[in-house]
């Protein structure tokens, strides 16, 4: 067994000290990655150049701050990561940054709990807010990217497709595809999602639908009857008009289908109908 394996997990103060001085174990707090303006207690690292962006430190030391910061009453920290800064990074970098922030947050949580237990003020409480803010910004950026990708590929922000369907009662609704116990590529017996017209059927429902249609036809029939009578009255006053109703006149009474209904339009308007003229002026009232 390599001797360093024995040393690393043990958190004795002397061991930490020696490890800190040697170059075998890296600096525990890579503060330059964390916050935009870093702490000043990091000058020794600038000489070394490493290929990896972060070094793994083993053990529970990561739940505590740099031992040089123990005992300080004020700790200075830089700004939180803003959304603009994070949008410039690749998803890989963001993923790494997330875990760096997560470890920092855990460290700050332990410090906060310790201070609450000992009834002492926490050094640098604004750090928690900054870390939380940067984490939420990171999450927003990643969600943005995922939604954009889903919109391009599937057409929905979730990536879950859907379709318009009709209720048993005839109303339309948007059905989102649900998760199946057994995924489609493993199903031997394909039990697809049956649309509601077939899934729920009874003779009472059919009768109800037929009666509703009858009512609709009656209304429609009545509508045409009224139009015809009106045209008849107009034609009585103006004999030059054709027998058949012109299309441009019918279109005037067209209604817009909104929210599943045709609004009731008045065909006979008494105070307008007496003055209904085609190509003639109203006689002046003396």
């Amino acid at each position, binding site marked *: 067994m390599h001797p360093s394996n024995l040393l690393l*997990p*043990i*958190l*004795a*103060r002397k061991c930490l*000290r020696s490890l800190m001085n040697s170059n075998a174990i890296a600096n525990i707090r890579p503060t330059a990655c964390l916050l935009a303006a870093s702490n000043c207690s990091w000058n020794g690292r600038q000489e070394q150049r490493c290929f990896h962006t972060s070094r*793994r430190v*083993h*053990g*529970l030391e*990561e*739940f*505590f*701050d740099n*031992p040089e910061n*123990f*005992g*300080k009453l004020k700790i200075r920290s830089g700004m939180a990561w803003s959304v603009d800064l994070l949008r410039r990074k690749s998803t890989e970098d963001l*993923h790494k940054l*997330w*875990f760096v922030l*997560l*470890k920092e*947050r*855990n460290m700050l*949580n*332990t*410090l*906060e*709990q*310790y*201070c609450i*237990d*000992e009834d*002492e003020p926490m*050094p640098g409480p604004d750090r928690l807010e900054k870390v939380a803010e940067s984490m939420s910004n*990171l*999450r927003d950026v*990643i969600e943005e990217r995922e939604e954009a990708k889903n919109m391009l590929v599937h057409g929905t922000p979730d990536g879950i497709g859907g379709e318009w369907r009709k209720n048993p009662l005839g109303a339309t609704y948007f059905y989102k595809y649900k*998760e*199946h*116990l*057994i*995924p489609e590529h*493993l199903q031997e017996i394909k039990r697809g999602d049956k649309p509601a017209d077939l899934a729920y059927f009874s003779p009472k429902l059919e009768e109800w639908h037929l009666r509703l249609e009858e009512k609709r036809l009656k209304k429609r029939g009545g509508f045409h009857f009224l139009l015809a009578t009106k045209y008849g009255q107009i034609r009585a006053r103006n004999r030059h008009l054709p027998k058949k109703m012109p299309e441009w006149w019918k279109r005037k009474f067209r209604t817009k289908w909104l929210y599943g209904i045709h609004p009731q339009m008045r065909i006979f308007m008494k105070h307008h109908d007496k003055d209904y003229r085609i190509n003639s002026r109203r006689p002046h009232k003396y």
Partner: protein
Amino acid sequence: MSRRIRIPGKLPSVKFPLHYEGAPQRRLFIPEWYITLAKPKEKMPKNYVRFHVPADMTKYDMKEYLDKIYNIKVLNVRLSPVNYVRYKEPLPWRIKKMSEDAPTPYQWKFIEPWKIAHIFLADEQEFEFPNPLKNEDDEENEMKLTDMMEAQMKAMKPKKNGGDNKSKMFLENSWF
């Protein structure tokens, strides 16, 4: 069998897709679980570590978390939930009473629950909770403390200038 705590609106905050045979391993791209290391007041074995953990987590989540993120090998994990309590919140402004004997309208509510994780470290590892508010190089500070004490003792001694009687009178006040 470990189960996740369910509170209809809030928990569990992460919902995984249904599992089937041959499915790929469950992965979280961004785990939103934050842990605090707590110092137990009782005396515990050197192997022992205590965490305060969100109510979403299970034993296996805890083990994977420590293994993958912190590279800590773990012998045993035990979780105990805290504040998993339901209580009635009375809503006296709601007018739903049918008779005078009916009880006042209420709503069931949950206190925010969380869990304590009792963990034993593997491979004969030991952990001692350090004091993050105390510096190791405190010898100079100790000297300063003793100097301060001496200065205070000197100040307490009575002065030989005028005003002696007044101070004596104040000190010998029988009221206090």
